[in-house]
């Protein structure tokens, strides 16, 4: 049994345990934190989600919640519904499912409710426009869909998405190191429970900054009303730049209302419980929608400057799917390795025994990651 300590990197360890079918034990989960000892509600919720998409797994949680033993079952897929707690955005729960879905017995059809956009987890818009195209590159392509039927802004959420993912027998080997040049920029500015004008103003500000480089910039506005607008007001912008070789570089930002400094109302309580928000360094309370648009556009330029074929928030998927790929040399170019990806590489080594060759390209400060895939095969999927 593999052993880990601490609450960090919880999802990737459970995900890797599931695909590699290896039991794990995690100890010292916030054992030093007197106020929030043990598993957080979103971590417990993620464990329940794993129970739903697999069959035969066992989860033992210690009385204090500081230790978890997880013995994975068979990845089933099929129709699943999950209500994500508002403490984390839907992206927290959906990200690992994107990696798990292709290896199920049945195509995954999951409906999730909760917060669709925030500044901690990757938004459902980024998952749709960034991660799904990457999945296609690895051979997961027919019937792949992510529908955002309701928006849910933080803190209360109330959004709803539907994700459908086909099963594959094996991933395709990928060698993707040509960055190409940026040929178009797409984006989505959503607004819910605020004036639709907010989305338009976000679009104007971000477009204005990006059209100096290229005319093909289109930012859609997506305004939600009535039953589809969730429980909190909010707006956000997601931008994706696409190159001639299909590399995708993204940036996103969501408006975050400033927390009341005084007051004891119940709303305050739910807000302070939002996991991860205390980790944010920047202030995302923008005085005007133009500020949010400019901020996001600048973040996109920053990401374009970093380069790579997989941007910061999709690095983990590229790394994981290379490791799970066929027994062939896989190779990708990424922007500077993020701390999250570095730990992913270590955990991949622990679970799958795969070590990447990591070569910095000093000509443009990117990194080339090479590995021999593990030849992972979905035995539930019959050869066509």
């Amino acid at each position, binding site marked *: 049994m593999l052993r880990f300590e601490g609450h960090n990197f919880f999802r990737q360890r459970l995900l890797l345990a599931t695909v590699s079918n290896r039991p794990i034990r995690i100890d010292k989960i916030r054992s030093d934190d007197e106020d929030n000892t043990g598993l957080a509600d979103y971590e417990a919720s993620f464990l329940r989600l794993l129970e739903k998409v697999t069959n035969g797994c066992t989860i033992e949680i210690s009385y204090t919640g500081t230790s978890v033993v997880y013995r994975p079952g068979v990845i089933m897929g099929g129709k699943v519904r999950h209500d994500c707690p508002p403490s984390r955005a839907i992206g927290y729960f959906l990200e690992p499912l994107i990696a798990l879905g292709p290896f199920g017995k049945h195509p995954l059809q999951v409906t999730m409710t909760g917060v669709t956009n925030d500044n901690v987890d990757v938004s459902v818009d980024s998952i749709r426009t960034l991660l799904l195209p990457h999945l296609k590159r690895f051979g997961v392509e027919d019937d792949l869909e992510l529908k955002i039927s309701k928006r849910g802004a933080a803190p209360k959420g109330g959004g709803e998405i539907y994700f459908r993912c086909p099963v594959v027998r094996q991933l395709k080997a990928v060698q993707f190191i040509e960055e190409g040049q940026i040929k178009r920029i797409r984006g989505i500015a959503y607004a819910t429970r605020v004036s639709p004008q907010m989305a338009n103003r976000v679009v104007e500000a971000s477009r204005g900054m990006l059209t100096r480089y290229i005319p093909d910039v289109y930012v859609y506005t997506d305004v939600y009303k009535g039953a589809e607008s969730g429980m909190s007001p909010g707006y956000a912008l997601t931008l994706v730049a696409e190159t001639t070789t299909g590399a995708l570089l993204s940036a996103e930002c969501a408006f975050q209302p400033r927390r009341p400094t005084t007051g004891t109302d119940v709303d305050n309580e739910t807000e302070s419980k939002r996991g991860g928000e205390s*980790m944010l360094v920047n202030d995302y309370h923008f005085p005007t929608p133009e500020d949010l648009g400019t901020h996001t556009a600048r973040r996109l330029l920053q990401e374009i400057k970093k380069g790579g074929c997989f941007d910061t928030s999709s690095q983990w998927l590229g790394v994981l799917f290379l490791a799970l790929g066929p027994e062939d040399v896989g190779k990708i170019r990424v922007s500077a390795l993020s701390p999250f990806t570095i730990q992913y590489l270590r955990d991949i080594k622990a679970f799958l025994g795969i070590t990447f060759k990591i070569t910095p390209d000093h000509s443009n400060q990117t990194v080339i990651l090479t590995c021999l895939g593990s030849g992972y095969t979905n035995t539930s999927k019959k050869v066509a």
Partner: protein
Amino acid sequence: VNNGFALKKRVNLMDLVYGDNPTDLNENNEDSDGSQVNDESGLFRVRKATRNTDRSLALADACKVEAKSEDLNQWAEESTLESLRGRFITAQPAS
């Protein structure tokens, strides 16, 4: 002025990722990095959270990385904006 790991001069990335003493991202290791202060009476131990833009969201189990505001402010300058032109198909071939 990039905070990426690849830019730190001549860091061996293989060692950084797989080395025996990898930069530990685990919060449980706070005790070892001296971020703890004893108060005079010795009764209480004050824990100081290490705040690092690069790491904080990884500690929250999220793949996003926040951008430092000083890194973003450089995009207010015309010269920085122009430096990126070569990355677009609209760029004129260097003459």
